[in-house]
């Protein structure tokens, strides 16, 4: 067992595909499913899952790419922080090319001389802070529940080791309040949710309870092709039986209670606040900022930055795409003005963005 190849078995995928076709015939009406994770969006495109499904089963992408849902004003704030004197701004690579309100980006200001460094882990940010004791190191804290525990761990380590030149600009978000907004959206008629596997590793089954309460299917799903097809099959079974619940396809990775240690760390470090999501607007209790005990690590408290309002990018429909009410093909900029080499909207920047995936796979 290596937990990868076994779930890329073509024969298994074909059996599941045939079962899904039989289920779709039994349901006899169009069904819309939404994946709420950028890694699912990428995997569905990469493995050609849409082409395996019957015509009546439609997959739409939701607000599951953290870079894509970061508001224009947060991108502007990140740039303001990165331009401060004596600052080393540390970020994941995905953020670099996301355009702010006035077309600039972290990548463009880096070309202009700002000290912006790309890392793959918060552990590297700690190293940078320790090796540059006279600089102010600011880490861009971005991501959902899968990623935010790594930032909690980082600041706990800094507190323990008395590392004082590292702070965080936190735009961390949590998934369940966004799902509630999608359930409330009258323009969206979603029959079932492909729930995010790696967010669920941390949060467990909690947080999805409202989906079955509102008569929709919810299946926590893994990321290999056999996982995704099985997840879809489980959702269709719920629809056929008219019996809705939170089910777990990804049992090898997700426990009902999640990762309780990671959840405790989140509780120890963060508190919930309203947060602005591109496309969805302000959602109550959907953002994470440091609580009083860790407020010294809040970059916004350490540095004076102007408060900016988000402005829309002309012609870009990323907001509607993130809500699942439009597909990239409906955007006038898609493929022409906006492409992976020259992204205009955030959904074209990240590999997991819906537009980027559609550009490469559809």
């Amino acid at each position, binding site marked *: 067992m290596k937990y*990868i190849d076994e779930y890329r078995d073509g024969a298994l995928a074909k059996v599941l595909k045939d*079962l899904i076709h039989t289920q779709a015939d039994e349901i006899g009406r169009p069904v819309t499913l939404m994946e709420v994770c950028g890694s699912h969006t990428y995997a569905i495109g990469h493995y050609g899952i849409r082409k395996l499904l019957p015509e009546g089963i439609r997959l739409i992408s939701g607000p599951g790419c953290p870079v894509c849902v970061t508001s224009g004003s947060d991108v502007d704030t990140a740039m303001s922080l990165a331009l401060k004197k004596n600052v080393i701004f540390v970020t994941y690579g995905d953020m670099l090319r996301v355009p702010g309100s006035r077309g600039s980006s972290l990548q463009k200001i880096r070309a202009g001389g700002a000290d912006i460094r790309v890392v793959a882990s*918060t552990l590297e940010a700690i190293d940078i802070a320790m090796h540059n004791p006279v600089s102010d190191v600011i880490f861009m804290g971005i991501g959902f529940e*899968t*990623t935010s525990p*790594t930032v909690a*761990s980082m600041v706990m380590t800094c507190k323990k080791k008395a590392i004082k030149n590292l702070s965080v600009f936190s735009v961390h978000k949590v998934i369940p309040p966004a799902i509630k907004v999608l359930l409330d959206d009258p323009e969206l008629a979603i029959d079932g949710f492909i729930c995010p596997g790696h967010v669920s590793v941390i949060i467990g089954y909690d947080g999805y309870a409202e989906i079955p309460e509102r008569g929709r299917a919810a299946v926590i799903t893994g990321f290999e092709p056999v996982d995704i097809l099985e997840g879809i099959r489980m959702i269709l079974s719920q629809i056929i039986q008219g019996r809705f619940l939170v089910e777990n396809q990804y049992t090898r*990775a997700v426990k009902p209670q999640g990762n309780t240690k990671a959840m405790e760390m989140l509780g120890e470090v963060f508190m919930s606040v309203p947060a602005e999501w591109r496309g969805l607007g302000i959602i109550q209790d959907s953002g994470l900022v440091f609580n009083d005990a860790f407020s010294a690590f809040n970059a916004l408290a350490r540095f004076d930055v102007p408060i900016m309002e988000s402005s829309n990018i002309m012609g870009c429909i990323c907001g509607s795409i993130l809500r699942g009410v439009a597909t990239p093909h409906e955007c006038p900029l898609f493929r022409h003005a906006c492409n992976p080499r020259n992204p205009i909207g955030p959904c074209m920047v990240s590999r997991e963005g819906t537009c980027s995936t559609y550009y490469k796979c559809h």
Partner: protein
Amino acid sequence: MCIGFPGKIMCIDENNYATIDIGGTKREVCLDIIDEEVGLGDYVLCHAGYAIHKVDEALAKDKLALLRELLEA
């Protein structure tokens, strides 16, 4: 961004870091977030430099066996 990959623990050092093997590639991950005891040979799911979950081998095998029954049906 929530990308995660399974790797096999090859060794664990005194600072609670593990060296893991992912299909022949070696990586170092921190074990500060994982909520279960892990040891050499265990598979862990890794994300952004941290192990976040110990893969449940028994559950994975049971589930695969169930799926493979479909092939014989």
